[in-house]
């Protein structure tokens, strides 16, 4: 765990840059993580996915699978990969300030 500064906030991150405390997150932090990961601007559709990931994590204690993401977030799988080409579940979790999803699906 290392401390870094994102969008002017001091935050703790894991070696891959995922926030270790979801409570330290805000939307400015999300925007900066997105820019650092190849998404210059978060659109309304990006936010729909990021918010869904975050809500599910805070509710269930685990990030949803790509299957659930495609079925329940309101954004279909094809579009998820257009929005987050480097991996929707992983990247939306990172931007949403929650731990990296651990599932295989």
């Amino acid at each position, binding site marked *: 765990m290392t401390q870094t500064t994102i969008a002017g906030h001091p935050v703790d991150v894991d070696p891959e840059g995922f926030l270790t405390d979801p409570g330290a997150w805000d939307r400015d932090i999300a925007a900066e993580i997105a820019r650092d990961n190849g998404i210059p601007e978060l659109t309304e559709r990006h936010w729909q996915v990021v918010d869904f990931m975050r809500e599910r994590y805070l509710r269930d204690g685990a990030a949803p*699978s*790509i*299957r*659930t993401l*495609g079925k329940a977030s309101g954004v*279909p*799988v*094809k579009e998820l*990969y257009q929005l987050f*080409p*480097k*991996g*929707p*579940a*992983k990247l939306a979790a990172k931007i949403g300030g929650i731990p990296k999803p651990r*599932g*295989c*699906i």
Partner: protein
Amino acid sequence: MPDDPITKVSIIISKGSLEGIYPGLILANGARMEGIEANVFFTFFGMDAIHRERHEHVKVAAVGNPGLHLATWVGGVPGMSSIVTHQLAKKMEELDIPPIPEFVELIADSGAGLYACQASVDMFGLTRADFIDQVEDVITVGEFYERAAGGQIIFT
């Protein structure tokens, strides 16, 4: 210095049982989830995973499968394959692992290329129309290697 990350994989699925098909599908989906480019090449009985009529009926092999830890004669009892398959399917649903038809569609939607093997198609007397729409093409082994260029090949 850290090793170079994997950026492309081509996965061959050659077996027609449930336990023969899932590992390749999980590898393909997992690759796409990591942002890794993926192709899936279905050959021999592995083509059941993309066969319109068969992909909903893929079963665990109950005979000759020491991994099940069943006496050989028990594995041969009529219906045993369906029972074992049903149990496993239930467990997989709990774990949010999709059934084969849905999983293949998910992988296609994720941008992976799905291909059937020309030699196997000829051998079994199949045509393009026997496969689900997500299959991009029926290709030869040479074309498979062309598409696999620059990446890793995984045989399952």
